[in-house]
């Protein structure tokens, strides 16, 4: 039990000890009770913010902890979304088959990540070229899907629909005889929130474990790690698969949330956003990334009322300021700042 707690608190994540976890529980309880004291519009919004956290967490593990910068997370996002669409439209929502669609939609991005990762890491592709290859893959997907407008582009009953994207896929449903539980509104919100909890805690455990220690060492000096007897490529492949799987999870949940998926979710701007959230929050820490993603998606939404370009331009400025002024990320820098102040006060007291 003590080992478990140690791993949870661990050396590679911020936020530990009683104070932090009590605060965490409080936040979680508030979040869980949101549907009881806000309207359905707010609940839908909150779900939207949470949907993106998985992609960001996955990118944090891969880039922040593993040193692998992939510009192509949106490829996995889009693949998962379209897969859910195709499978669920074809299978329908009876007999809980939507859950089958969900599983398949989560599986395919992981498989793609394994194949692409193998091609890259076992093929000696490193550093910036990983970024170029992954971006190229994403753009290939986007371009390909964008030209699937004609009626011949159909898989079973599901039309791919080119630029306009696919829509009309059924939400998650649990069939219970007469009354079905449809995952929409509050049930979907709680489902996503539960997933956030599970993924966040699970990744905390992973990152603080022996695996995480090696991963962070690989980030620092991959050749040296190989000389300590580790199969570095396997670790990189694993981190990449985790990143891909998490991006896929975001993709499926996004599709479930909005009942649509379009090629633009795989375009250049879309590919930039997770990088912005992760870099701005502090890529080397899971908690910072979680907080930053929720905060920034909320801010973007507020600004999008005036026009998408204002949201994006703010994101751009923010990223620039972070890179120049607080390269560790603004959430991390803030935490470090307060820690130092506290330590100074303790010293003077």
């Amino acid at each position, binding site marked *: 039990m003590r080992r478990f707690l140690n791993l949870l608190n661990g050396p590679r994540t911020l936020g530990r000890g009683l104070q932090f976890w009590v605060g965490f529980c409080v936040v979680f309880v508030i979040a869980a009770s949101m549907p009881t004291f806000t309207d359905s519009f707010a609940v839908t919004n909150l779900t939207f913010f949470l949907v993106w956290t998985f992609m960001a967490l996955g990118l944090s593990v891969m880039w922040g902890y593993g040193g692998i910068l992939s510009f192509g997370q949106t490829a996995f996002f889009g693949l998962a979304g379209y897969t859910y669409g195709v499978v669920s439209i074809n299978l329908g929502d009876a007999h809980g088959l939507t859950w089958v669609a969900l599983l398949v939609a989560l599986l395919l991005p992981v498989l793609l990540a394994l194949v692409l990762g193998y091609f890259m890491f076992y093929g000696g592709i490193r550093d910036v070229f990983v970024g170029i290859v992954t971006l*190229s893959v994403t753009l290939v997907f986007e*371009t390909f899907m964008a030209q699937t407008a004609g009626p011949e582009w159909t898989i079973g009953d599901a039309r791919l629909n080119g630029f306009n994207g696919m829509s009309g896929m059924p939400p998650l449903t649990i069939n219970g005889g007469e009354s079905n539980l449809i995952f929409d509104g509050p049930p979907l919100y709680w489902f996503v929130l539960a997933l956030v909890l599970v993924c966040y805690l699970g990744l905390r455990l992973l990152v603080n474990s022996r695996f995480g220690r090696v991963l962070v060492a690989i980030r620092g000096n991959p050749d040296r790690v190989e000389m300590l007897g580790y199969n570095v490529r396997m670790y990189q492949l694993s981190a990449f698969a985790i990143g891909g799987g998490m991006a896929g999870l975001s993709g499926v949940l996004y599709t479930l949330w909005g009942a649509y998926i379009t090629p633009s979710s795989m375009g250049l701007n879309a590919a930039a956003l997770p990088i912005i959230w992760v870099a701005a929050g502090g890529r080397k820490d899971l908690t910072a990334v979680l907080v930053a993603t929720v905060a920034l998606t909320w801010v973007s939404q507020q600004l999008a009322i005036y026009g998408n370009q*204002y949201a994006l331009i703010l994101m751009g*400025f923010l990223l620039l300021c972070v890179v120049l002024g607080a390269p560790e990320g603004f959430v991390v820098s803030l935490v470090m700042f307060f820690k130092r102040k506290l330590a100074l006060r303790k010293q003077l007291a």
Partner: protein
Amino acid sequence: MDYLFQAYAVFYQFADAFAFLTLSGLGLAIIFGMMGVINLAHGEFIMCGAYVTVLSARAGLALPLAMLAGTAAAGLVGYLLERHIVRRLYQRLFDSIVATWSISIVATQGMLIVAGPSIEGIKTPMGSFEVGSLSFSVYRAILPFIALALLGALYWLFVRTRFGVHSRATIQDASMAKALGVDTRSIYSKTFVLGAALAGLTGALYAPTMTAVPTMGTAFIVQSFVTVVVSGADVMLGLAPSAAILGLIQAALTGLSGQLIGQIGLLVTVIIVIRTLPTGLSGFFLRRNGEK
């Protein structure tokens, strides 16, 4: 005779693609090849050049002068960005990628806010000519020659001028160059400005052939990246062959299955090249000649 006309049509498509790829890639190649900085704002320098060209031309300036204005504007912006932002990030590769990407976003969205989704453009000059039953744009037929002339001018610049020699010394071994009295900081700055100006020139040259929109940079960025990666670090050696091969692939695929498939073809090519020829064509050429 008809066969000859068809052959010319194919050649024209190829030359057009070659010109586009070369001109797109030049500015990026200079900056990446010389300084190892990946300038993701490259497309926006092109956009800047195009916008200034269009606005100056519509304000009454003769087209060649308007193009000069566009080039200069991009160079100036490049100078300012290098001095205040890029300069601090030379040793930080990830951060320079992220920073230039954010500059790109700010520039595109900023232009959207300031100038709206599009501005009224300028016409393609010089009219058209006929080959058989097909007509082609004179201007676009000339662009490949301009591209080649630019490559020649750059060759002269890097091989026969003081600046060029200092630049190449700085790329090879910056600390050694510094020790020999080369002002490496000034070289980096001038190189970045040169890259930005070349991008601006590309925008200026293509401005009469496209609609000026804030996101026009994205039409170039993918092509430029692909060309530069396939070319490898030695711009002089690799850029033209890279543009030629890619131009062939793109023209062929576009002709057979349309523009989007042509684009996909380029992307797939770059993935294959990264896997099989990581140092690009120029790296391949250099290795074959026995250099290490």
